[in-house]
């Protein structure tokens, strides 16, 4: 019998079809469900109103992240400090009450394992290759880095998964994004994914599941792959898969919620069958050359507005699409930039190193390597380092990274979503400019009127030291 060659996505999909309707809609089983405080209260309320339980509490894991202030959570005596914002406090206590009522496994704000949901999942071994994984958060695409079919869902779907452990879905088209070659000096996974989004556009992946392939992806650590998959959604794709390999298995083995013993052996044997078969076809393929990717950043208010740090602010008139011309002019007005200005001449007031895109230990190491021996520039009003989880924080402290940052003038914070989304006290004031390792430069994303430039942790560190957007390679070579 000949078996049709299949992609990674097609294999995971096929193994999760509970039922297939005549019109192609499938009832898909969900193996893993991450829950946080913002997109779940209405879902739990729906269950309560209908008298429905959570079907599989063991496949569900809840952790608060979006609302939490990143300042100290307990006082000197170890007592929990109150959260000033009543609405935030209400949402956090609603999560505590809901997980208790419905019996959902929960990592509390005061637990050392607490962190951003997309940092915690992989770190705890909850995220596994070949699983379907959902969360009421669009950056759930991150978990695709471990070969999980992972995607963000709305609150109605959160309720649907809680009640039934399934979702009604139609199969997506497949988009291969291959990055060939070897990354140049000072070029990071963030630069790779920014270059990809710059190439395909913010809607380029709409309707597709991306699979990232090629030498550059294979050579990346899991932390780097998580950064790439995380931003799939900024290119319009709900999911961005990376085939599991030895790097993946080594990362997962021994984690608290990962399989052990015989189950581990069986799991690895299954995971090894998942990579895309030779000869399998993607609906679309795009190839990037690593040598074309420089340290990059955004200039506008869409993640597709990407330039290399050596570049300049584009002239809106240079865009062919008339709608893009209008959008670019509006972006420049909002960002307070003029066409032709060199990116390296743009001064900044804020630096944020954190978010589900870039708050893992390798991100902090990369930033610390640039910061060491320097000090944050005088014009910087606030420079935040926000580890992605309590365990990342602890590891960084064990390595002395916290001291490198604090001695240089950065603030060392508690884990959470922080300045990524203007939902907790960490915000950028109107009209001020932030070099940010987060994932969205939308209008108002970091606070009303805030101006965001997305870049890598090393580039953010370099910007903090110089007080302006900076080619990190200058600082790196100076130190070498």
């Amino acid at each position, binding site marked *: 019998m000949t078996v049709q060659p299949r992609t990674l996505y097609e294999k995971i999909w096929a193994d999760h079809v509970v039922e297939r309707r005549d019109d192609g809609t499938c*009832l898909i089983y969900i193996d893993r469900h991450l829950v946080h405080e913002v997109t779940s209260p209405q879902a739990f309320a729906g269950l309560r109103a209908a008298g429905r339980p959570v079907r599989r509490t063991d*496949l569900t894991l809840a952790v608060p992240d979006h609302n939490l202030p990143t300042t100290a959570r307990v006082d000197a005596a170890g007592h929990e400090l109150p959260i000033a914002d009543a609405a935030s406090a209400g949402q956090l206590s609603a999560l505590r009450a809901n997980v208790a009522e419905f019996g959902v496994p929960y990592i509390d704000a005061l637990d050392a394992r607490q962190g951003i949901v997309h940092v915690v999942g992989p770190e705890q071994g909850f995220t596994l290759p070949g699983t379907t994984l959902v969360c009421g958060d669009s950056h759930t695409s991150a978990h695709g880095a471990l070969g999980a079919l992972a995607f963000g869902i709305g609150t109605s779907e959160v309720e649907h998964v809680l009640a039934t452990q399934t979702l009604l879905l139609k199969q997506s088209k497949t988009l291969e994004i291959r990055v060939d070659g070897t990354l140049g000096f000072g070029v990071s996974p963030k630069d790779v994914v920014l270059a990809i989004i710059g190439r395909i556009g913010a809607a380029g992946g709409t309707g597709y599941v991306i699979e990232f392939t090629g030498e550059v992806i294979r050579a990346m650590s899991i932390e780097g792959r998580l950064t790439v998959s995380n931003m799939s959604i900024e290119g319009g794709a709900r999911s961005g898969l990376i085939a599991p390999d030895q790097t993946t298995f080594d990362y997962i083995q021994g984690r608290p919620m990962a399989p052990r013993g015989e189950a581990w052996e069986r799991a690895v044997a299954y995971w090894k069958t998942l990579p895309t078969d030779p000869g399998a076809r993607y609906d679309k393929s795009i190839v990037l050359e690593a040598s074309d990717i420089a340290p990059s950043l955004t200039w506008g208010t869409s993640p597709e507005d990407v330039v290399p740090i050596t570049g300049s602010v584009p002239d809106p008139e240079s865009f062919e699409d008339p709608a893009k011309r209008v959008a670019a002019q509006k972006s420049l007005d909002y960002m307070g930039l003029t066409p032709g200005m060199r990116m390296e001449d743009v001064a900044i007031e804020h630096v944020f190193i954190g978010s589900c895109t870039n708050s893992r230990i390798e991100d902090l190491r990369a930033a610390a390597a640039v910061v060491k021996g320097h000090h944050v520039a005088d014009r910087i009003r606030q420079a935040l380092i926000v580890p992605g989880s309590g365990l990342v924080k602890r590891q960084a402290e064990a390595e002395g990274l916290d001291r490198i940052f604090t001695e240089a003038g950065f603030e060392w914070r508690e884990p959470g979503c922080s300045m990524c989304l203007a939902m907790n006290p960490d915000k950028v004031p109107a009209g001020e400019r932030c070099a940010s390792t987060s994932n*969205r430069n939308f209008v108002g994303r970091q606070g*009303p009127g805030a101006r965001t430039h997305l870049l890598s942790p090393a580039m953010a560190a370099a910007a903090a030291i110089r007080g302006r957007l900076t080619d990190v390679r200058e600082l790196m070579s100076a130190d070498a």
Partner: protein
Amino acid sequence: MEAVRKVEGRAYPWGAKNIDTDIIIPAHWLKTTTREGLGKGAFESVRAQPGNVFDDERYAGSPVLVAGDNFGCGSSREHAAWALADLGIKAVIAPSFSDIFSGNAFKNGIVPVVLPQDAVDRLVEVARTDEITVDLETMTVTTPFQDRFPFELDAFRRQCLMEGLDEIGMTLAQDTAISKFESGMAQSRPWIAVETANEGTALEATGRT
């Protein structure tokens, strides 16, 4: 969910491209634990600008929004759909929608209508003076000027909209199939069931987090 068969009335003639869900409803409005009342936070940054379509009396209470490419991109927040519903919007017409937003729209009785750019341009023009009709029976968008633009919807989603179906209730009716799948999975992929969930252990290994 309330059944939707036809949406007719005035429309916001907007047409803006890449409208993300942070623009539809900024994050500080997401601290609610209910679905209601988000209309007052809808398009906050847009409404801060004078002369915006949402505060123009001619369009107040319009059930239709005519928007640009990639509407609803970014965050998965269903609050965006709740905010539109709270404003009274029952259909959004655009050349394309983000996948997550369009799913959220359907689940809240909002019809995401995909039409080519030239049709959207024409509807922006019509909306300045006249009403627009979105009809799920005939699957067309029409105007008083004999414009007639056919559109497509996923058959299942169309049925859910037109009958106001409770999707969770429908899926729970498949309980036997789900249980059967779970039994099969316990054999073929036994590691999926988490045995060590929340046991309070943290990984202790040098250099790993």
